[in-house]
């Protein structure tokens, strides 16, 4: 659109960045806290006991007993032993039997029982029965982290497509951002201590460049994550729109076990037997889960997925005969290098392999991304401020400024509200978990309305105070409502629970500092504000 490539790209960077930046900010906030989803779960479910040091043997024994009793004739069992950070509890899933009857019914869409009956439970290792989690019905950290790609209220198909467009805009934003910074390294070391648009731009550059590899990785892997939703056309088209062929092609990329029933009832080998065989392997500690296909049939097969570090999703796959317990295959899950690359990207995105240090690094990189979006959006308004003071405020400017305040600060208050709701909503309440989320979005809505009725700089300051108080009060609300408070968690050295409250306090202090800085700036900008009000008076 311009003679100079850099100028065109600056234009594209500005607008591709701005157009959905508030949803992108929401994705970054919920995604970043999502790196601590299990820790947040822990804090939001203080009544659920913590189980540690459960051996794989115990997990498998308890799960096997339960599944043999409750779902002997299922199509598939999945047993995920309790062992890692992201698997704090023994979790089982079973896929109900698909019979000819259910297939027929499904075709006719007649009966309700057309769908095979699936099950999903968290088992108590001591009793062997499903764990009672109903004391405090909560969405926990999982609901919060899922928001970064399903946006919660929208229909899932619409949400995925919207998220796809926004992620693509993010990619365009990153690449154009790199292109327009010829002096990328000198910019990195440039931070002018001054006010106004230039300081915001410097901050935006500092945050973006310092976390550039992370931002690029998280964006591209985000696209890869849902490649089947966003870019299925190449595969389908390549097979001449023959969906069956495309499906066959897909199955050539990974090793997937597909087991047909023989129809003869079979006696499944004890899973303990399999665990015993596994225990001599070097990678026994890395066993991720056990899948049993057609457990009640003579064709039964047992698949053990073993993950290794980065390629956790493209794990090693061990296949055992379900009757004899004999090892049939020891092979990688992935059969294709491109898919291998894709799985490494997905693993990098999820960061499940990360220990505490790398996890915090992920968290801070996410915060830098969040800050990058925020400073970019603020820079857009700052740059226009001077011009606006001359020509009078236009609607677009007012709109962006209000959205900025209500999202950049307001969403954080809403996040605090989500945690408040977890502690304050009555325990027996109907739809309690849903209302936690409603509380979050109601508060966000109010925060979006507030700046419409206030002078903008005052609105920034007021919202910072509110966010500060909302976060500082979290440990207090926690103290008043549960036993999971700092006076218990610190002496016990429970750093997950204590860490949550400490981060809440730190966030609260951060917003208080921001509010104080804004307060100092209020009188100095009276001139601009006066000009704005004058212009506004003239305009109306």
């Amino acid at each position, binding site marked *: 659109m311009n003679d100079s490539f850099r100028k065109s790209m600056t*234009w594209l960077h500005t607008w591709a960045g701005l157009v959905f930046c508030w949803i992108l900010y929401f994705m970054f906030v919920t995604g970043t806290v999502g790196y601590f989803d299990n820790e947040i779960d822990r804090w939001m479910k203080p009544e659920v006991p913590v189980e540690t040091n459960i051996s794989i043997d115990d997990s498998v024994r308890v799960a096997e007993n339960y599944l043999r009793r409750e779902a002997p004739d299922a199509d598939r069992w999945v047993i995920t032993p309790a062992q890692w950070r992201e698997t704090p509890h023994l979790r089982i899933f079973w896929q109900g039997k698909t019979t000819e009857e259910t297939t027929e019914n499904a075709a006719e869409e007649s009966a309700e029982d057309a769908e095979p009956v699936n099950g999903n439970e968290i088992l108590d290792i001591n009793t062997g029965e499903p764990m009672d989690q109903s004391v405090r019905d909560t969405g926990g950290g999982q609901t919060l982290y899922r928001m970064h790609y399903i946006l919660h209220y929208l229909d899932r198909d619409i949400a995925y497509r919207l998220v796809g467009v926004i992620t693509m805009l993010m990619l365009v934003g990153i*690449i154009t951002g790199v292109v327009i910074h010829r002096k990328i390294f000198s910019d990195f070391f440039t931070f002018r201590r001054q006010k106004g648009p230039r300081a915001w731009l410097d901050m935006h550059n500092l945050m973006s460049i310092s976390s550039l590899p992370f931002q690029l990785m998280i964006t591209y892997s985000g696209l890869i994550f849902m490649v089947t939703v966003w870019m299925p056309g190449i595969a389908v*088209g390549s097979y001449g729109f023959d969906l069956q062929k495309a499906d066959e*092609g*897909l199955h050539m990329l990974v090793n997937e076990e597909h087991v047909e029933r023989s129809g003869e009832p079979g006696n499944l080998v004890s899973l303990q037997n399999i665990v015993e065989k596994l225990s001599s392997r070097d990678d026994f500690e890395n066993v991720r889960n056990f899948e049993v296909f057609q457990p009640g049939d003579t064709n039964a097969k047992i698949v053990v997925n073993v993950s290794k570090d980065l390629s956790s999703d493209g794990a090693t796959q061990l296949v055992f005969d379900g009757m004899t317990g004999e090892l049939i295959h020891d092979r990688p899950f992935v059969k294709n290098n491109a898919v291998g690359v894709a799985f490494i990207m997905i693993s990098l995105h999820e960061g499940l392999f990360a220990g505490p240090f790398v996890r915090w690094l992920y968290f801070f990189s996410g915060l830098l991304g969040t800050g990058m979006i925020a400073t970019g959006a603020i820079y857009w308004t700052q740059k226009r401020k001077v011009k606006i003071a001359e020509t009078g405020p236009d609607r677009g400017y007012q709109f962006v400024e209000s959205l900025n305040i209500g999202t950049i600060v307001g969403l954080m208050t809403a996040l605090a509200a989500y945690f408040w709701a977890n502690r304050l909503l009555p325990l027996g309440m109907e739809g309690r978990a849903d209302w936690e989320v409603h509380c979050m979005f109601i508060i966000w809505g109010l925060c979006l309305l507030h700046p419409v009725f206030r002078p903008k700089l005052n609105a920034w300051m007021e919202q910072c105070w509110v966010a500060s108080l909302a976060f500082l009060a979290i440990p207090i609300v926690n103290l008043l409502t549960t036993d999971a408070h700092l006076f218990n968690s610190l002496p016990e050295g429970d750093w997950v629970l204590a860490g949550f409250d400490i981060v809440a306090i730190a966030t609260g202090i951060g917003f208080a500092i921001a509010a104080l800085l804004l307060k100092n700036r209020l009188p100095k900008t009276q001139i601009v504000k006066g000009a704005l009000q004058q212009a506004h008076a003239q305009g109306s």
Partner: protein
Amino acid sequence: MATTITPRYRWLVFSRIMAALIPAFLLINTLGVALTLLLPVAQHSAIAWVTLFSFAGYCALVMWIFHAKSLRLIWSSLVIVIAVTSGLSWWFIQMGNAQ
């Protein structure tokens, strides 16, 4: 952009947004399909590689659309490439089926 916002400017931007959303996305798909059929590797493997890089290609294409000077150049290029690549793919698939 220092330019004042005229109806013509709005049109230039709107047309490019539309081009980037629909034909450009279509082009990445048709070009991708053609590449999977042309590359000298197994088809399923080619699909995986091409799909992996498709977002990078889409990004580059969008950047070109917002840099190229004339709308006519943008739209005609998009239409021609879509037509050629889909025609080529169609011919390849027909040949494959005939064998």
